[in-house]
């Protein structure tokens, strides 16, 4: 039998419009960059990898329709995509019905498992816990919680609330703003923050609203050195959008920052900039999108087909030298070993890495009780300076 030379089509669903288009566009570009690298290195045994991409416009309904279209009309069997949990939940039944595979490169709230999904973003035990520890030991345990109104912020705030209580701290307030909240919405929130004077602010605001929030904070004359915003979702992409002068001094926990000094990262960033412009910035979701595309290619190479029955065993347990360092897919829960870090935005809009785990942390998506005793042994924190 002759070896097939037909291209392998892979579905790609990241939004170029709608509330979370900035970060999703970076995930799209990371995926396209990885595909370019894969094809330049000879593809899958000579077969080209082609991205079939549609714009789901940050809308769960559109995500669902396009996932179905990718599988039924375009004949793809693997989809790389989704940012908000609501969009993943919309795609999930589709990939299950058609026994296709979804690779999901975004931090999320955990408590999910599907045989048809590989999760390459951080679970809460790989970012929330580290952020809570850092903020409480450096600023105090009275936190003001602000999030966008969807599942991820609610779950993140539950975890943060538990950890604050464990430290005899307090949720000064827990507030939710709509996904497309604007400057006016945040003026009121920030005025309340100013009145209440928490030790720090915990933000899980996502998308364009993030910039409005940080700007309202800056305009109110608050000082990030004394009362910073700590976030799980504010990455280089959001910082670039709002401007470094607004974001400077605020803190984010993530498994990847553009400033990571590994060679794999320097190279990936350089290639990314050659293709998408010298100003292009990377971020944690960009990185997950980038390495998961490479891991998919590696699995495709080793089994020679994109059917999930063969692909899954190849992906489960796979290790890869990603820009953040070594990552590995956990065979039992389909999530990824990742290295948590704490970063602070500097004057150039990049993150100065304040802390990093000494080694990748095992994903634990069903961890309910994120108590301090659980993770102090698990995460050896090495100061990077």
């Amino acid at each position, binding site marked *: 039998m002759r070896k097939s030379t037909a291209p392998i089509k892979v579905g790609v669903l990241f939004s170029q419009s709608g509330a979370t288009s900035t970060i999703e566009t970076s995930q799209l570009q990371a995926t396209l960059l990885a595909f370019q690298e894969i094809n330049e290195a000879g593809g899958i045994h000579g077969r080209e990898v082609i991205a079939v991409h549609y714009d789901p416009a940050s809308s769960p309904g559109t995500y669902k329709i396009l996932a179905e279209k990718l599988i039924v009309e375009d004949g793809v069997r693997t989809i790389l995509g989704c940012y908000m949990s609501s969009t993943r939940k919309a795609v999930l039944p589709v990939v299950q019905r058609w026994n296709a595979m979804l690779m999901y490169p975004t931090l999320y709230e955990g408590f999910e498992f599907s045989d048809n999904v590989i999760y390459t973003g951080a679970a809460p035990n790989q970012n929330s816990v580290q952020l809570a520890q850092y903020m409480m030991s450096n600023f105090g345990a009275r936190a003001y919680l602000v999030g966008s109104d969807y599942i991820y912020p609610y779950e993140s705030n*539950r975890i943060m609330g538990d950890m604050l209580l464990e430290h005899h701290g307090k949720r000064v307030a827990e507030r939710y703003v709509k996904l497309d909240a604007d400057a006016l919405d945040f003026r009121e929130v920030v005025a309340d923050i100013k009145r209440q004077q928490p030790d720090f602010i915990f933000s899980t605001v996502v998308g364009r609203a993030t910039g409005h929030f940080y700007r309202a904070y800056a305009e109110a004359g608050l000082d990030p050195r004394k009362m910073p915003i700590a976030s799980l979702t504010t990455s280089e992409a959001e910082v670039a959008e709002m401007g470094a002068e607004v974001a400077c001094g605020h803190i984010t926990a993530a498994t990847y920052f553009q400033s990571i000094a590994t060679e794999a990262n320097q190279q990936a960033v350089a290639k990314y900039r050659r293709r998408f412009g010298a100003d292009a910035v990377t971020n944690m979701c960009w990185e997950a999108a980038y390495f998961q595309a490479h891991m998919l290619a590696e699995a495709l190479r080793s089994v020679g087909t994109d059917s999930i029955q063969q692909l899954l065993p190849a992906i489960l347990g796979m290790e890869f030298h990603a820009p953040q360092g070594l990552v590995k897919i956990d065979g039992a829960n389909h999530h990824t070993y990742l290295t948590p870090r704490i970063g602070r935005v500097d004057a150039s809009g990049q993150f100065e890495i304040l802390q990093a785990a000494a080694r990748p942390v095992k994903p634990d998506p069903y*961890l309910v009780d994120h108590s301090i005793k659980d993770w102090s042994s698990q995460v050896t924190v090495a100061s990077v300076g």
Partner: protein
Amino acid sequence: MPRKSVTPALLRDLRSLHVTVFHPNDEDGIDIIRQLQRIGCQVQAFWPPTERLPDETDLVFLAVRPETLSLSLPWSNGEQKPPIVAVLDYENPTTIEAMLKFSVNGVVASPVKSFGLLSVMVVARQIAARETEQHKQIQRLDQRLAGIRRLTKAKAILMETRGINEEQAYEIIRDQAMAKRVTTEEIANAIIHANEILGFRAKAEVRDLQLVQRKKPIGPS
């Protein structure tokens, strides 16, 4: 009320649970075990179901098959009953009957999906905890009711034998209880016992008297 945690306790302690799975070693059984392990529970699996539960069983998954109908599983009833989640592969009357026999607290349908298992466990535990609590409460109420009945009986004995009213009878019982530093219920018991022994004949006489009295008004005399 101060809350120790934002997260409900039923959810918080899921990880410390010892779960016993009575399920054949098939795809569904393996899926259940894997998902329980992902959640972080301690899991043991057996088939067929055993008459005795392993020590430290906090929750049971029980595959319900027609043949389970004939099994006797003492642990599925009674006070110490753990929460039970039935795993059904058919929804016919035979299977439903088998399920009802084991007073289950939750149901999952086959083919088992990993999504939904956590919720059914939490709900089953909540229902079982509520059942246990209600059972205890009913026992307490039963005891109190029995106590009130005995007190009433003791008062009746005193009223009868001493020709006093109810209030006076109660005062005697209460004074005795205070003097001897025991409960009024114990005094009531003592009076009833004493009456049963000493008043055996008298009681028979009283009964005869009552019969005579009751007969009197009947019919024109």
